[in-house]
């Protein structure tokens, strides 16, 4: 087993990985950019080293600096977290060349899965079900028209190197195809430096369901159950749950076995996720494989009782999976929401700044994976994910109510967060009835939120509270005229003067 691991990441995931290391008696090395000196992951690490200025390209993406810190500190392995270098095959290879274990799959598996068209060619050979379309990039607009005719409109244009919705276009009819193809290609070129675009049949109101797998380096691969990730905004996941409300044991087994086949066809090792699109008839189609630990991994941990980061580390150190497929059971229900520093009243625009007050949620069935603390300033330079709150319960209803209760305890001041969005989602009748698809959130946001207004407390309570804050804590209660409120003289003489001024 490793004695020391470098965590090449920041925020909640760096803290989460370090916690696992501490539980396994492994010491931890943090790296940080100039603006992250006071970040939580630096405080939680045994050692920490600066790697450059704020922009990720000059710090968290600098392979040379990270490897130099690994050497200097004597770290034997690097955990990349998610994002940054986690799916960078060059980095995995550079680690191997430097004699440092990369906790994840091999560079070869990553390269195969990194290109959506290459992955598709490989997976078609292995007999994996696909959304009808092309397995390779389109050579011309004529070819695009022929393929679109064959699979039938509506179709989806997708960037081969893509992700995050970039280079994607929905095309309803032939006359829209050429201009959509041009704009998808130019967006793909701008975003990924690669203009390759392919066609898939568009599935109307699909669900997005993914399967967690684990593979050791001795040839054993298991699946750990699915996660329902249909609640998305701009193709980014917002809320995830396990198990999926529509997946029964038979469908779970078929999806799991397919995911294992995908992983084996790619020679995959360590933790990975196979994403599927599911149509209204519950047919599932391979979408892509994520070659890293996912943001939403805690819902799988809670419903399987396994710790995925512990297992990642054990696999990377050469251990055999400590269980077989038949040992794995799904128990209870878990729902995760991603707490972002963004402003729900301003079109979810990012809201960095200083956290002046933080009241974290607690209690039964609540897990709070956070990378923040009260008094910390959320920098402007990175992804706005602050924390994840996960509710766990015997069944979906209890998990929902626990998460809802936890969010009512959760309070962050100084910056805006999307906590109120999750409260809306969790009390929505369609969510409660598990009527989910990737269009759910857009429909919810278009509906408005009447229920909250009806339940709002009296403004008079706020008025009394404002006055009491001023008299109990006059130093930090400036009145409108710019002076601090008088140090609570509050005697009748003062009142008399005030009355006289009316």
């Amino acid at each position: 087993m490793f004695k020391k691991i470098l965590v090449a990441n920041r925020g909640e995931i760096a803290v989460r990985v370090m916690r696992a290391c501490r539980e396994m008696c492994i010491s931890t090395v943090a790296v940080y950019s100039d603006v992250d000196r006071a970040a939580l992951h630096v405080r939680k690490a045994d050692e920490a080293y600066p790697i450059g200025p704020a922009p990720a390209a000059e710090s968290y993406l600098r392979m040379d600096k990270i490897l130099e810190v690994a050497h200097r500190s004597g770290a034997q392995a690097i955990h990349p977290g998610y994002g940054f270098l986690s799916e960078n095959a060059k980095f995995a290879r550079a680690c191997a060349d430097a004699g440092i274990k990369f906790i994840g799959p091999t560079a070869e598996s990553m390269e195969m899965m990194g290109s959506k068209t290459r992955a598709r060619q490989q997976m078609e050979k292995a007999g994996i079900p696909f959304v009808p379309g092309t397995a390779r990039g389109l050579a011309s607009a004529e070819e695009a028209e022929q393929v679109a005719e064959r699979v039938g409109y509506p179709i989806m244009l997708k960037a081969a190197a893509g992700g995050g919705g970039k280079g994607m276009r929905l095309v309803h009819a032939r006359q829209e195809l050429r201009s959509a193809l041009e704009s998808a290609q130019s967006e793909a070129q701008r975003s990924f430096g690669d203009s390759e675009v392919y066609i898939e049949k568009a599935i109307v109101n699909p669900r997005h369901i993914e399967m967690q797998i684990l593979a050791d380096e001795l040839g054993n691969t298991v699946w750990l159950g699915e996660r329902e990730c249909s609640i998305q905004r701009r193709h980014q996941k917002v809320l995830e749950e396990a198990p999926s409300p529509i997946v029964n044991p038979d469908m779970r087994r078929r999806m799991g076995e397919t995911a294992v086949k995908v992983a084996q066809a790619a020679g995959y090792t360590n933790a990975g996720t196979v994403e599927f699109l599911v149509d209204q008839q519950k047919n599932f189609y391979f979408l892509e494989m994520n070659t890293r630990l996912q943001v939403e991994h805690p819902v799988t941990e809670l419903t399987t009782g396994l710790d995925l980061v512990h297992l990642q580390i054990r696999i990377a150190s050469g251990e055999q999976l400590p269980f077989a497929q038949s040992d794995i059971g799904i128990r209870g229900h878990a729902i995760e929401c991603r707490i972002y520093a963004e402003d729900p009243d301003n079109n979810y625009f990012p809201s960095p700044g200083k956290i002046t007050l933080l009241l974290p949620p607690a209690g039964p069935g609540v897990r709070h994976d956070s990378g923040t603390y009260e008094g910390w300033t959320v920098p402007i330079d990175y992804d706005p994910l602050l924390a994840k709150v996960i509710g766990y319960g015997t069944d979906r209803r209890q998990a929902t109510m626990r998460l809802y209760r936890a969010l009512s305890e959760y309070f962050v001041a100084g910056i805006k967060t999307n906590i109120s969005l999750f409260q809306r989602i969790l009390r929505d009748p369609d969510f409660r009835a598990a009527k989910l698809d990737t269009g759910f959130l857009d429909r919810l946001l278009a509906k408005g939120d009447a229920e909250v207004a009806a339940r709002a407390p009296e403004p008079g309570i706020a008025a009394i509270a404002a006055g009491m804050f001023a008299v109990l804590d006059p130093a930090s209660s400036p009145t409108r005229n710019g002076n601090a409120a008088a140090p609570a003289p509050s005697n009748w003489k003062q009142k008399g003067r005030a009355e006289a001024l009316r």
Partner: protein
Amino acid sequence: MVYDVIVSGKPHRLELEKVDGVWQCRLEGKEVHFDAVLTGRDVLSLLVDGRSYEVKREQTATDLHLWVGGTRFPVELRDPRSLRARQSSALDEKGPRKILAPMPGRIVRLLAAEQSEVEAGQGIVVVEAMKMQNEIKSPKKGIIKRITATAGAAVNAGDVLAVVE
């Protein structure tokens, strides 16, 4: 103490007195029985007629909000003894208004020039933070007296970007 508390734009006359060590309160002239304890710098436990409220205070560079449970109220505390406070609501509409950066970020570009006429809600400056761009809009119709923001510069929350009159 007498305060005019503006909650969500509506004024409330609040009188607070400490009599024999106990706080007494009149809201709009009506007596309210309550008890309040500051449980943290920004957290007040308020009991009103037996009902328990956890009130959180959020102060930014530009404004004050109080959260009662999950509801946020924009609040202004005015001391009616101050002449300026009594006139300030009129000043808001007529006088010059500063446009402040609502968050730290970088100025991407300017959308209006000094001395140009702008409508209420018209974009003045584009600020980028966390790889997203946000248009900062004019709070009123008027003429841009001054632009202090420069493209490419970093700004902090509360920095003055422009003045509209």
